[in-house]
């Protein structure tokens, strides 16, 4: 039982999970206190499932996830103060039809009153220089704008760790650079999941996941170099023809 101050930002103990009869994660153990951790892996490696487990959205079959001492799968009330998650597709994340309602939702979930939530919405929009977004409808926003809205909605809740599940995939280069700049400025710890090594350059630590297991862990430069070499090797092969199961 570690106290709050001593509690590790990230502690995964022997996580295993099967979904619909298929084993996705095999005994993943991972501890860390770095502010910028990357998780790299191919599509289907289990990294997105791992993101959901870390965010407490999916309880593992065995093992335990604790973020800053909070059991995020069981203690959901504490979990939403501790961890936020940014999905790859912002349309899977945005619940409300207007910008301020989307941001205010998380704040009222934290128990804030309607007026406190409105003040929080204004504050976060101003922090990002987006005060003019107040009241705008979500539907006509571009993909990058929607993704930024998701980020602001999460940051408004001031979580201590943010899980990024490939939020940059599919964005054009300028949008990706702009969003990366916003992410770099975030105070919270980031756990960034990606299939693209370029997005994790400069991170404090990178973990490589393959077939639901950790196969590499260390400094970003080393792990990303190994990962890239292996991806290029696989690129010359034809495992696209292999069927699952």
């Amino acid at each position, binding site marked *: 039982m570690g106290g709050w101050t001593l509690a590790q930002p990230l502690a995964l103990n022997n996580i295993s999970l099967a979904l619909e009869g298929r084993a996705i994660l095999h005994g993943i153990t991972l501890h860390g206190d770095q502010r910028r951790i990357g998780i790299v892996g191919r599509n289907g490696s289990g990294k997105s499932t791992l993101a*959901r487990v870390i*965010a407490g*959205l999916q309880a593992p079959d065995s093992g335990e996830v604790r973020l800053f001492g909070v059991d995020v799968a069981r203690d*959901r*009330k504490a979990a*939403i103060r501790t961890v*936020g*998650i940014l*999905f790859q*597709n912002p*349309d*899977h*994340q*945005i*619940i*409300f*039809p*207007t910008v301020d*309602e989307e941001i205010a*939702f*998380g704040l009222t*979930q*934290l128990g804030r009153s309607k007026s406190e939530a409105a003040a929080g919405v204004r504050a976060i929009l101003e922090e990002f220089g987006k005060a003019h977004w107040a*009241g*705008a*409808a*979500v*539907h006509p926003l571009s993909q990058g704008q929607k993704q930024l809205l998701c980020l602001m*909605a999460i940051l408004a*809740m001031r979580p201590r760790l943010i899980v990024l599940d490939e939020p940059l995939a599919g964005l054009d280069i300028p949008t990706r650079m702009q969003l990366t700049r916003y992410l770099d400025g975030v105070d919270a710890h980031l756990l960034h999941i990606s299939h693209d090594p370029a997005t994790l350059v400069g991170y404090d630590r990178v973990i490589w996941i393959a077939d639901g297991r950790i196969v590499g862990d260390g400094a970003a430069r080393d792990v990303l170099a190994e990962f890239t070499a292996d991806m290029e090797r696989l690129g010359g092969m034809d495992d696209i023809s292999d069927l699952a199961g």
Partner: protein
Amino acid sequence: MISLTSPVETWAHGWRAGAKLGALCLATMGLFVLNSVPGQGAAFAVMLALYAAPGAVFFRSGIVRLRILWPFLLVILLWHLVTATPAEGAEIALRLVTAVGLANLVTMTTRLSDMIGVVRWLAAPLRRIGIQTRALELGIALVIRFTPMLAAKGAALSRAWRARSPRRPGWRIVLPFTLIAIDDAEHVAEALKARGGI
């Protein structure tokens, strides 16, 4: 497309949603008891004036939203030409456009949270007897958020169909369309859970 709150801020944005909905309700009922062509014409003119008041951008986006009514107007026109009752036809057509126009107007000038506030107020008696109404408010927001998205995905699905078929999409497109709705629901459930659930 679904009419969300207009980004053009009008004087009516600040009015009480309950009052606007009440007025809409009365106006709609009034339209249905009003059996005179000049009366319906006047109501139609008032509706147009309300659209014109906030400016050209608002007017245009409002009128575009009314264009979807044309097939009905066509049917009414043909029907009443055949039955030789043009006055009745004009009355029905004007009423249709005015009624939908006024309803759109309330939607365009009322923020969703204010709309939900009215529903909350109406649902207050339910809460007093112990029924949770938060789910209702959330449900309303979700439908408004996801209807245009589903419609866009449905259009994409029809395009994908037509790209490989000389015919228009058949009923079989309903299955993948429903699957999209189900999968979106699973994502939404996850997004709700990620921010504290219900």
